[in-house]
């Protein structure tokens, strides 16, 4: 049996080329997931870039933007109010349980106010909007793709991204902060209801601590996050639907994928945004 040899036939060369092969496959194993992740992000970034480009070219179809804003925002109001109210109440319940350890239940207005403003309202609103509007966008775009409606748009020299995607992304970015504020208000009502009527916290204390400790900056942080979430969730949903290939089954998979991808994108960007805001506004300010 002969030992494996390299091009020049020498045994030393064989060991060398073996080492090179092993190194290459190790490098591949390390690089492939990174390249995959970059690919994933890059494709969506390209779609976002094309959609933004569509904002600056004629014709400007205002009606499409308004229709999407109604779908994403107004249509989501009932569920935002419902989830907001109960989230506020639950948040108050948890806060009181924790503050009780230190006999500081009177601060519940403050803790709930800040946590709603900075975290709960933007994140929960984004998750609700992903589930409702994100899945709706993916399904609608996917169905249009498989029934050749998107091809039909192209035959009329209409840019499908400008016509379909741009209004959806812009509508979501605009409506997210608004719905987040609705969530804040309804959440506070829920927290108020729970604290005052079920836990008998002093009303004056609740309101005063809320007023004293929450700042405009909390709401600025929350609404900025909401806008960023609006970008990530709508791009995730639109990408899934727009590039569907296949039939009804694939549209269904795209819808599921849109909700999953949108939700994950919200939670991951939340982490990075928290860090950014922490740098801008350290805790003790």
């Amino acid at each position, binding site marked *: 049996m002969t030992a494996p040899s390299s091009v020049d036939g020498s045994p030393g060369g064989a060991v060398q080329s073996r080492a090179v092969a092993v190194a290459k496959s190790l490098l591949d194993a390390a690089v492939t997931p990174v390249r995959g992740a970059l690919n994933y992000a890059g494709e969506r970034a390209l779609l976002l870039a094309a959609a933004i480009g569509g904002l600056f070219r004629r*014709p400007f179809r205002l009606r499409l933007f308004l229709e999407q804003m109604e779908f994403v925002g107004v249509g989501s109001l009932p569920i935002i109010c419902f989830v907001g109210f109960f989230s506020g109440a639950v948040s108050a319940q948890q806060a009181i349980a924790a503050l009780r350890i230190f006999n500081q239940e009177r601060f519940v207005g403050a803790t709930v106010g800040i946590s709603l403003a900075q975290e709960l309202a933007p994140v929960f609103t984004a998750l609700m909007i992903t589930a409702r509007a994100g899945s709706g966008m993916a399904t609608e775009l996917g*169905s*249009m793709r498989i*029934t*050749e*409606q998107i*091809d*039909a748009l*192209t*035959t*009329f*020299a*209409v840019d499908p991204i400008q016509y379909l995607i741009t209004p959806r992304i812009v509508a979501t970015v605009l409506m997210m902060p608004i719905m987040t504020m609705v969530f804040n208000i309804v959440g506070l009502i829920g927290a108020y209801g729970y604290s005052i009527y079920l836990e008998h916290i002093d009303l004056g204390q609740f309101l005063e601590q809320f007023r004293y400790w929450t700042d405009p900056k909390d709401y600025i942080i929350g609404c900025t996050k909401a806008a960023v979430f609006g970008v990530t969730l709508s791009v995730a949903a639109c990408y899934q639907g727009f590039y569907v290939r296949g039939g009804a089954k694939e549209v269904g998979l795209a819808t599921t994928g849109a909700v999953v991808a949108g939700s994950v994108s919200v939670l991951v960007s939340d982490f990075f945004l928290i860090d950014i805001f922490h740098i801008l506004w350290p805790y003790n300010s």
Partner: protein
Amino acid sequence: MARRDERWQIRVRGLNKTFGPQHVLRGVDLDIERGKTNIIIGGSGQGKSVLMKHLMGLLKPDSGQIWVDGVDVVPFKDAEMTKLRRKYGMVFQYAALFDSMNVVENIAFPLLERYSLPKAEVMERVRDLLRRLDLADVPGIEQKFPPELSGGQRKRVGLARALIDRPEILLYDEPTTGLDPVATKNVDEMIQRTAHDFGVTSVVISHDMASTFRIGDRISMLHGGKIIVTGTAAEVIRSPLPALREFVETSGLVAAGAPS
């Protein structure tokens, strides 16, 4: 070729297109006759739709030329491409009507997108087409949405949408595939009447042999990425090429005088 030809409205030379590992079009040469019904036949997955998309400028070839009225359109940029598209109307296999719009909005769509015409004129043109395509009698047709229409009605609305901007060339993507024989005959008649009433050049993709030989003025077969035979119905049906014979014979057509 760089001159408007009275007989040949579109001339394709040496068209090549590859999708990844698949070399779909391998040097296609094709002539589309002005004012006639040109039918492109071929097996499923042979690249007929890809070829048609090239004619409309929806795809760019890897190499080759497409002469439309004496101008090579392959190097066209966006602005010229937009102008070129106005010569065409496309009728999709399942009509591809916009679900979010009603019949009137669908038909008017090309006009509303391309021009700013007064609403009255747009409505007049829409109604004219509804009449000419026998849709005006359907009660409430104007406000109906695509899911409320029958298959035949949807096809006609799709055709109306393709016709409203008075194209010179109509492209039909497998118009009779999946239809029962009566519906097939209706669609064939619609294609012929449209060609006659509107004076358009028709390019039809089909693998329906009966329709093809019934209404085709000029028939070309795409096989292995090339056009292997082209001519009148009478010429093509007598061709000895094996691919064509298989197509003709398995569809049950028997041509008088065809070699056995």
